[in-house]
């Protein structure tokens, strides 16, 4: 009751802020600014759109389904899940040079890597090389936390367990003989994933770190033997493993498998017949999925994607058209401010 009396005895501060008189910029979106602005933006967008569209058009993509649903397909024989160690061939021919560097992707569809329980089913401490978590993986990995004998699974969890395990070999058929196209498996995963985020335990040889653990049930080889040819490509920093562990956003996705950058194929795949030998291991038919391989080259904007170019062209022309409409409207109904 007393404080009221005291509070207001002195005169209020006469500053610009307290009097709400701060100097202010009062922009008005008038036709004089908006119409030229729209024209400019429209033209710029059309320009970018054209560039994007042409770039995208120049990208070559070769996409082949090898799930083996059709009986005519060579892989039909492997589509029975009980059939282990099945290999099938996919043959195709190129009439022109497939310009390099060529990127080789595998694609899966109707495969929900984006499911929450699936994505959460991993132990990042384990994957960063913490040996404590080799013994006791987190419970989120369940049901791939321990095997039936209560041995810890490393790497644990559904995500690691379901790692894509089809392998491919590409041959160019030159005069009836098969010539192996060399694949480059380096640098297909994010640099930070390979160098920082995922770490093997600092135990040499790496195999010892995995003592007392078992490999994921779906895997045919333990983690430390994923790449027998390159010892630095094993364990958790195996490039294929890293690519797999970065979950796709959508149920139809592709992941980078290899690049073709070496030898005779550095400039691309020459015209001719090719045969892709597939070690068909990965079951997808049980959930209605499809598998495919994609050969593609990339540009500054990444892989082939018509959407961006078209969208830019549409929006750009929309802007131009609208500026025209506005011009007409303004010319007709002369708004007072234009007088």
């Amino acid at each position, binding site marked *: *009751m*007393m*404080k*009221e009396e005291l509070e*207001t*005895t002195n*005169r*209020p501060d*006469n500053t610009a802020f*307290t*009097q*709400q008189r*701060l*100097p*202010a910029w*009062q*922009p*008005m*979106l*008038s036709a004089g600014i908006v119409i030229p602005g729209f024209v400019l*933006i429209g033209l710029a967008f059309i320009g970018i759109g054209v560039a994007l569209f042409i770039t995208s058009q120049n990208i070559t993509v070769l996409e082949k389904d090898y799930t083996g649903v059709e009986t005519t397909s060579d892989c039909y024989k492997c589509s029975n899940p009980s059939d282990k160690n099945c290999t099938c061939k996919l043959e195709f021919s190129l009439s022109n040079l497939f310009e390099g560097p060529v*990127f080789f*992707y595998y694609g899966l569809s109707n*495969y*929900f890597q*984006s*499911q*929450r329980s699936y994505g959460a089913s991993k132990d*990042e401490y384990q994957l960063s090389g913490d040996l404590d978590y080799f013994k006791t993986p*987190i419970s989120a990995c*369940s*049901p*791939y936390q321990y095997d039936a004998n209560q041995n810890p699974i490393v790497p644990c969890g*559904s995500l690691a367990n*379901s790692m894509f395990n089809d392998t491919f070999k590409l041959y160019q058929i030159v005069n009836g003989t098969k010539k192996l196209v060399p694949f480059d498996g380096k640098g*297909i995963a994010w640099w930070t994933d390979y160098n*920082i985020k995922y770490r093997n335990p600092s135990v040499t040889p790496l195999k010892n770190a995995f003592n007392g653990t078992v490999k994921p049930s779906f895997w045919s080889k333990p983690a430390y033997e994923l790449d027998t040819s390159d010892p630095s490509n094993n364990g958790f920093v195996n490039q294929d493993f890293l*690519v797999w562990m970065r979950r796709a*956003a*959508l*149920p139809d*996705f*592709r992941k*980078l498998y290899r690049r073709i950058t070496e030898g005779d194929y550095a400039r691309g795949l020459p015209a001719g017949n090719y045969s892709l030998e597939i070690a068909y291991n990965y*079951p997808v038919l*049980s*959930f*209605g999925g499809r598998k495919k391989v994609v050969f*593609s080259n*990339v540009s500054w*904007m*990444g*892989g082939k994607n018509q959407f*961006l170019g078209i*969208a830019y062209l549409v*929006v750009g022309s929309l802007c131009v058209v*609208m500026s025209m409409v*506005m011009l007409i409207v303004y010319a007709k109904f002369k*708004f007072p*401010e234009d007088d």
Partner: protein
Amino acid sequence: MLRRRLNRLFGRDERRVDSRTIYVGHRPCPATDAFIPPKFCDNRIVSSKYTVWNFLPKNLFEQFRRIANFYFLIIFLVQVIVDTPTSPVTSGLPLFFVITVTAIKQGYEDWLRHKADNEVNKYLVTVLEDGRRTRKESEKIKVGDVVEVVEDETFPCDLILLQSSREDETCFVTTASLDGESNHKTHYTVPDTEKGLESLSATVECEQPQPDLYKFVGRMHIYKNDQEPAVRSLGPENLLLKGATLKNTQKIYGVAVYSGMETKMALNYQGKSQKRSVVEKSINAFLLVYLCILVSKALVCTTLKYVWQSQPGQEEPWYNQKTQKEKDANLYLNMFTDFLSFMVLFNFIIPVSMYVTVEMQKFLGSFFISWDKDFFDPEIQEGALVNTSDLNEELGQVEYVFTDKTGTLTQNSMEFIECCIDGFQYKNRDSSTELDGFCVTDGPVSMLQQKAGREEEELFLRALCLCHTVQVKESTGQEDGVGDQVDGVLGLDGEMVHPAELRGFIASSPDEVALVKGAMKYGFTFLGMESKNMRVMNRDKDVETYELLHVLNFDPVRRRMSVIVRSNCGDIMLFCKGADSSIFPRVRQEEVDRISMHVERNATEGYRTLCVAYKLLSSEEYAQADAGLREARLALDDREEKLMAVYNQVETGMSLIGATAVEDRLQEEAAETMEALQRAGMKVWVLTGDKMETAKSTCYACRLFQRGTELLELTVRTLEDGGRRREERLHEVLLDYHKRAVQDPPPVKTRVTRSWTSAKQDYGFIIDGATLSLVFNSSPDSSHYKSLFLQICQNCTTVLCCRMAPLQKAQIVNMVKNSKGSPITLSIGDGANDVSMILEAHIGIGIKGKEGRQAVRNSDYAIPKLKHLKKLLLGHGHLYYVRIAHLVQYFFYKNLCFILPQFLYQFFCGSSQQPLYDAAYLTMYNICFTSMPILAYSLLEQHICMEVLMSNATLYRDVAKNAMLRWSPFLYWTLLGVYQGLLFFFGVRFLFSNPALQDNGQVFGNWSYGTIVFTVLVFTVTLKLAMDTRHWTWINHFVIWGSLAFYMVFSFFWGGIIWPFLRQQRLYFVFANMLRSVSAWLVIILLILLSLLPEILLLVLRKPRWPHSRQKKPLVQSGEGETQSSARPLLMRTFSDESNTIL
């Protein structure tokens, strides 16, 4: 509060008894067998809500009683209990933040209350204990203590006055802080206690504490040696109330009768009921819509999940097998937990932070009102006072303004204008010259045509000098004559008796001072009281003394007051002055005829008129009256009724000697303010206790009634025509007016176009208190009458209600408030009699006027002058409404387009509650990334600058009727949110049809997807706000660009470090990688532009509605000014000094 309740509970036994007995000075009295000190509550005042110990639980309890907080608590608990997609932190952190901030604010406020309490409770007072004076803290005073109070101190508790330092056994107090009356009131000691307080042995028997300030009944038994105890009656004139201040008296002693929370002040202190604004109601309505959206989203997702899972192979694909626990769980339980999980995932659609931001906006925004120097009044050295910050925006929504007349429209500073003696008019315009002039001629009274006999003149002037309760304030040189008292400091020339001495008059009503000063102009000077003698200096500089025998106090029912005096020569005279209606029936009819004409003419000119009558009492008559008065004063029961009866009996058969006219000046710019309010579409109702003629002329002077206004009168006078029953007549008149004002003219619905210049017939309605109670209370048809009355009133531009009791004022406000469409009402007043309507209306405004602080204390906003109302409503109110409306809409919008992509993503992740955004983004979106710009906007935005708003009152109609928070703008914002949400999600979706977005062929995953969407989102909603901002101060620039920059920096950091406390480094380098991709950049730019495109188009194509900025269109503005000024030459004048120009 709790304490009080407890006291009530424990005091139940005591309460059953009707009276309490107090032993003065705790001394046992001979009459009582055993002295049992009765238990009363201590003198501690507790207005605080919390203590250190109960603060946490009590405050938390109160906070979670708010539905929003409770909702977030539930969400948080669900997250803790059920396996949900986001960690409890995401909702726990904001909730914690909100609760903490609110708790700190409330804690601070309570600390202030504690401090104020302590100031009162620890105040040192002097208590007489066994004859010794001891200093004690105020809170330690017990009932029965004898307390000493010195001049200008406030009384620490309710005291019975025992002894005063003044010779006449009186003391003066002001009760300004209690009831707002700033006059000095005289209180009397209890007789026979004058001497020897140490040995005084007495008991006080009085009623139990009750809140009525003006009622007190008790009696005192005084025991002297072995005599029979003397009994003295105690009335309100013996009781000194806590909170009142001792004036003009050196010191007094009193015995405490009520203490602490039982004092009348504490009983009157009521926490004002919380007023909630319409915006809050809109928020709640929108909230409900969003809650429905939320629930339906969760339901859709849950359904889809189970539909999708029923497809072969999708229930449990081999790559994502369920755990044993999941397999065992009950299907329906699973569905329920899934539903809860979805609720949690989408709960961000209802933003916690909106409540915080709204609170902060209101709290901070209210400072701008108290800071505004335009509200500063140099006279009282005060600016505006904001008592509640909850209603800022309501100021922009007012439809009905209820204003008091006296002190609000008018200044309540009275000036004696003229008088009428015995039917002759005396006018004294230019006082000083005329006074001199008349000193040398034969008489002091300016004569116009004829003049009354000297006898009558002098009698009349004596009456003016005697019939009042004015006190003379002897000035002591350094006295600051101008305080808050109603006084006139008058300088008299050297010819006078006291040269160079300043003399102040103190009175309960400014009229009295005006009259005494008026009499002085004509040569009769009231010199003051000397014990019981009134001294008057007459024209011949002789001092006449009159013994004051009785004062028959003024009361609003009688509307008159009288004094009975005995002159030197022994004549006993009764002088009476009062309203014409109360005097005329008590005097002879032929006298009335002579004077009533003058009275009526004066009234129509806007003056306050009083009639003066007198009567010579024979000694028998006096003896009878004296006995009656004494008896009535001593009565314990129904004292007032008895007094009233005696008064009425004495005040009869008088003879009318004259009438006075006193001018009540209009407030500064009262007319312009009223005019502006009306042009802004508000309807102004004047509610006054004054008589009709005076009020009507004030209305004319304020331009509330105009030349063309057709007045519909519904007063006692109109009802008395024809001599039929009043109810019948009322019905007839009501129907007639209804026909004229409601049915016949084209309805006044076209509010927006209705302007003060339009040719449409304006109606003004006049009703008086008596008729109003007839309308309200006439039995079965009352609701019918009421609705007729209301309809008529609503079609009138101005309604004048005169002769209103305070309660009737509140009744009127209540009626309008609850009428169809529940319009927003505002009451403005300055006196204690306006408190009821101030509390009743949606917004109560107090004027820091002369009638004390009661109105100010109960108001929501207090301003020094009426003219400030214009800026408060048209300027601040309009801006705050626009600000908060935009704030609310924007908040819902930005959360809709925040959560919609997350919802859509459920279709692409098997409805598995996978969040699209990282937890940090989910948490920070509303707290950090998008909160500051909207807060800055909602504090600083001036879509139209203040000057234009003030000069162009019709702009107020643009936001009338909650225009920006109706369903159609809400739908617009919602659609905008949906459009943008769809765009964000599907734009990125199409981009991700090929996730190889980098030139090294590497692919992006789900977190990159979410981050791209989120980046587009943050930029779009911020830029959307930037587009809506019309007033860019450096603060706006800083927070808008600052929060975008902060988002970028934060994202870099968040993704740039392996955070040791996080298990999942989901965003590690996601943001940096995104920026490395040209496609991501391009899609972000594209989507931002595309989502803002419709807005830009609308902005350009929509005709600019308002004349905008000052610098932009000097031409338009000046043109407008011209049209206005040419059309309103009359209104440009100041009306302050032409209140009496009558049409």
